[in-house]
């Protein structure tokens, strides 16, 4: 991201999409605005930029009122950079700027300097002298100027809309967990560790001490469960923020004291960041050092227990730019390691990468045939090593994973040995000694396997109909292709192509590593050491909003195929669901559940149970396509009736003709499923991967709250947006006369 400060810098001539706002803390509401900007700039071919101020306008407009920030300007810019903007324009908010009229601001700055073609703002955005400019004025001005204006709805979570001021209040009240929910990450305080009085070390729990960073919001004084980012790693910790009334009765400035668990680090002079996770207790004055010491021991125990029970996933360390996310849980016997590679793929690359995954997980130099690799895994008490190609919109995800028991009764670690096998498969491929390419026999047998699997999808009539509908809905875009590509591309992959893809995999794809389960220090160190074996590379990072790219649905169409089938298959595709990064995604999830996502839904109850028109009928939302698909198997002579009745159920939702019980049941089912995800390591890790891809990483509890907060009106509004785009039907004469010999 290029950063421009002041209005004197000359700007490259570019057509820009511009987000306007101060973005203190860059909370979830801001993130939605930035993702919208990125998405639209990607579609329109614009340079994405943000125009903001270095200092908050309140400093100038209300100089007597103290103002504290959620983040420094540097932190704000770092977060914007991470989100993938092309440019950030940072201006000082001065009395002169404050006096600028709204008209001048728009004409000289927005149109004149930035050549804006697109403006993205929140509904409360104000600008110009005395805040005279608002969204209404922007609408008039942009319409006149032919500039596109997008006003992103405010994001509501919990008690109301997310705002920086609400988050500041929560932090000041010690509600740091709620603040983290609204921010999308924990509130953090950073600085250089100072030499302290070493009282903690004397008492047996050494601390790293920091002054409160000037200008930042001061949390409620007290004890917190925290994580510390130091020396390139993240550590579980306990932090006291306070005036230390027991040992320094005259202290007037809060001090931050942090004890890191299970590590003896030398941090004096180091820059560290402390993430506040949970408030444990308010600051207290004790009568003696002994009483303080007792309380600290109890605090340590409590916070250690908190970390153990919280089962949060966090970035533990980075190796060569590859983040290792850790989700530690002692409830499971099995540990999991997932290497997640992601890339924006062309149709050819989809096929090539999918074949590569199969080839890499089939053999390696140490185990040059499949049976020996399989035998090694079985010997590790049924450890599994798998490669999988999936797809989200136009992003292909290649996951290499191992799942195995962390420890066996003899003290050995099947998981550790399985991790070694995974890295051997990935980094020591079994190449042909003569030409340095993947061996022909392996490539050809894996190609045959994939081709057969791809072709066999058509054996399932409903899948065939769905695939055809998906392809037509996406109008030839990569979004509509199978995760393993097309047969024609798969057939064309050469061994040279595979080697090139292998190089791309290791050097040019985004890579994140997830480690979950009962992971002790030695397993963690082992995995960290394995990660160091990955080649050094500057890997790209996907930017939610831009990647995955949105899918444009094709022109409306209807396709009927006649084949010898017993039952007709019907697939309807609707567009109109919100973008995958949008806060409204929760409404889409609920709408799908009510319409056809479960056995209590309208489609199941009306089409199957009441009308007896189908045995199988359901809906599913495809969030990366912003689309909803309805699938059914019906008797050919009831096709028309079924199609009509299915469409009526969508209209029923749009017309609000549903009872509250349906909505309540859907909420119950969805929240129950979300809670269940917390009991399954694989689901927990998948949530993390998916959350990072969509830019909407949410704790299970937050997802539940969002579902519970969806209103009837929101469901109706969204159902009204649904438009039937593609209908695909497979029908014909029954096949029961199939020839038996």
């Amino acid at each position: 991201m290029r950063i421009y400060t002041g209005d004197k810098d000359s700007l490259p001539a570019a057509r820009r999409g511009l987000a306007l706002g101060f973005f203190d803390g860059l909370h979830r509401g801001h993130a939605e605005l930035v993702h919208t900007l990125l998405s639209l700039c990607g579609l329109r071919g614009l340079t994405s930029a943000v125009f903001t101020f270095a200092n908050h306008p309140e400093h100038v407009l209300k100089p007597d009122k103290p103002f504290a920030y959620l983040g420094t300007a540097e932190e704000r810019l770092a977060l914007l950079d991470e989100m993938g903007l092309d440019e950030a324009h940072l201006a000082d908010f001065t009395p002169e700027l404050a006096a600028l009229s709204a008209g001048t601001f728009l004409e000289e700055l927005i149109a004149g300097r930035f050549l804006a073609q697109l403006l993205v703002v929140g509904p409360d955005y104000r600008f110009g002298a005395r805040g005279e400019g608002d969204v209404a004025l922007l609408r008039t001005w942009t319409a006149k100027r032919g500039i596109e204006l997008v006003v992103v709805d405010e994001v509501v979570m919990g008690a109301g809309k997310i705002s920086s001021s609400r988050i500041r209040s929560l932090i000041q009240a010690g509600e740091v967990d709620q603040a983290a929910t609204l921010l999308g990450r924990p509130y953090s305080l950073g600085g250089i560790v100072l030499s302290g009085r070493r009282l903690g070390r004397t008492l047996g729990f050494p601390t790293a001490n920091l002054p409160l960073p000037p200008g930042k919001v001061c949390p409620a004084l007290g004890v917190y469960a925290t994580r510390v980012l130091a020396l390139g790693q993240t550590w579980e910790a306990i932090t006291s923020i306070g005036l230390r009334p027991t040992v320094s009765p005259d202290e007037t400035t809060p001090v931050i004291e942090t004890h890191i668990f299970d590590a003896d680090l030398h941090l004096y002079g180091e820059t560290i960041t402390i993430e506040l996770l949970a408030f444990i207790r308010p600051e207290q004055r004790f009568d003696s050092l002994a009483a303080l010491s007792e309380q600290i021991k109890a605090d340590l125990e409590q916070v250690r227990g908190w970390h153990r029970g919280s089962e949060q996933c966090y970035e533990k360390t980075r190796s060569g730019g590859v983040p290792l996310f850790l989700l530690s849980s002692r409830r499971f016997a099995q540990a999991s390691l997932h290497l997640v590679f992601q890339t924006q793929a062309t149709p050819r690359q989809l096929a090539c990468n999918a074949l590569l995954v199969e080839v890499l997980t089939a053999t390696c130099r140490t185990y040059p045939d499949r049976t020996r690799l399989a035998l090694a895994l079985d010997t590790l008490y049924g450890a599994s090593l798998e490669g999988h190609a999936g797809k989200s919109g136009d992003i292909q995800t290649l996951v290499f994973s191992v799942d195995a028991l962390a420890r066996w009764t003899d003290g050995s670690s099947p998981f550790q040995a399985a991790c070694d096998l995974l890295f051997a498969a990935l980094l020591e491929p079994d190449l042909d000694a003569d030409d340095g390419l993947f061996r022909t026999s392996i490539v050809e047998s894996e190609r045959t396997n994939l081709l057969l699997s791809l072709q066999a999808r058509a054996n399932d009539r409903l899948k065939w109909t769905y695939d055809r509908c998906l392809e037509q809905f996406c109008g030839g875009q990569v979004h509509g292709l199978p995760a393993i590509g097309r047969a024609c591309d798969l057939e064309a992959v050469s061994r040279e192509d595979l080697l090139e893809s292998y190089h791309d995999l290791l050097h040019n794809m985004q890579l994140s590593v997830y480690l979950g389960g009962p992971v002790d220090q030695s397993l963690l160190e082992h995995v960290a050491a394995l990660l160091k074996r990955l080649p050094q590379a500057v890997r790209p990072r996907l930017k939610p909003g831009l990647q995955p790219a949105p899918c444009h649905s094709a022109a409306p169409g209807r396709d009927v195929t006649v084949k010898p089938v017993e039952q007709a298959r019907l697939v309807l595709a609707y567009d109109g669901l919100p973008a995958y990064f949008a806060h409204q995604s929760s409404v889409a999830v609920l709408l799908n559940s009510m319409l056809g996502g479960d056995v209590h839904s309208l489609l199941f109850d009306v089409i199957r149970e009441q009308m007896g028109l189908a045995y199988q009928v359901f809906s599913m939302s495809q969030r990366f396509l912003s689309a909803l698909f309805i699938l059914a198997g019906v008797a050919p002579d009831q096709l028309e009736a079924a199609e009509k009745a299915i469409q009526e159920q969508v209209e029923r939702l749009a017309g609000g003709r549903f009872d509250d019980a349906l909505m309540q049941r859907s909420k119950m089912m969805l929240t129950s499923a979300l809670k269940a995800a917390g009991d399954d390591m694989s689901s927990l890790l998948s949530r993390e991967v998916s959350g990072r891809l969509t830019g909407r990483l949410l704790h299970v509890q937050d997802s539940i709250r969002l579902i519970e907060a969806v209103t009837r009106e929101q469901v109706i509004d969204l159902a009204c947006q649904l438009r039937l785009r593609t209908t695909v039907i497979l029908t014909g004469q029954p096949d029961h006369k199939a020839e038996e010999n």
Partner: protein
Amino acid sequence: MQTMPDLPAGYQGQIRLDDLTGKQLVTIRHPSSLTLRILPYPGFVRMFAAAAVPFGSIHTTCRPGGREIVIPAGSAHFLEHCVFSRDDEGGLAGHLAGLGASANAYTTHDHTLYYFSSSGHFGEAFRLWLNALLRPQLDESRVAAEKPIILAELSQYQDDPDARCSQLLMEGLYHAHPVRTDIGGTAASVTSITAQDLGEAFRLFYHPGQLQLTLAGDFELAMVLDVLDSCLNGVAGKSPGLATPVFPDEPALPCRQSLQLEMDVSVPLFMVGVKDPVRDARTALDGLEKARRQRTARLVLDTLLSPVSPLYDALYQDGLINDSFGCHFSWDTSYGFLACGGESAKPAEAAARLRESLAEACRKGLDELIFAAQKRAAAGEMVQALDSVEHGGMVQARASLLPVDLFDYPSIYDKIDAVQALSQLSFLADPQAYVTALVEPRR
């Protein structure tokens, strides 16, 4: 194993602590004679319940108390549908959805298994579900309403090449045994089923003494017992006597060795079946022996036909099979067969190679190294299953049909050796026992 203290009068209970996993299994016998097993999962949110009923598609003739009763084919599956009977509020599934619980069920050749899971309101959901199971709506109106749905389900299978291939195989393997009929029955048999048929089957097979309940999760025992007491009140004491199934005489060798079907398929399918001649008397086997035989068969199949085996690898390398290849051994007191197959571009060649190589591999004996690895893998998988409330619960629910505890499995594996194991499946070496079923594209 220790006896549970503080159970109400009439109850019997035991707690078993497993050394390998450190987990517990609680077994309780209700005064109604219903058996309940609980796998506690402290700290987990998910809760799971399953009921195994020893009524499957093969139970078409029974002789309770000397009287012979004929049950139409597909009745077990029909009864499963009726438990989920609907009312104006969505029936069992709808009511459970209101509590965040999702329920499902399946019918096999020899049993029906009902299950549900939830992440809260378990007591209410358990009560609803158990009541539906013990008091299903079995009147003519319900039966009439359910028929078109079941017929649509059967019609859907007609389009499914996998289902057609499996069915073809069964018809090749068996002459007369009801296992040759589709689990759902035929369109004609389903059409003929009456409320009276279902009522009779229900009285025979759904008595509390026949039911095996399994719960997995973090429960309060008092709540569970309270639900049992109230749901079983008025149900107990109606046992019509043991519903001994009766089976027709079945020849030891298959009915036909080669069958083929032409359908509109993009990829052909093949299945190879091997018929167990059932020459030994099996009705008196205890649960542990049944489990030993079942587990032995699984180890032999994994050794001979899983990706670790040279046979699988050779077929895969030659492009005759793909990832869809699978195998299973189905076994009961009156029948037994191995079925394996999948998608193939050359199904006839794949089947022929498989038949020859499998019989040959059995004649040669099992590779000890691979067999030992399969034993370790199976033991590890049992521990892994316990990481999931639903998976662990399901494994125990199936084990309870034998009946055994899932903690019995590792010790069973310890006692199995490769030579003994193969001798149990000696029929695999007999070429006459093999059947091939192919689904080929229409010419």
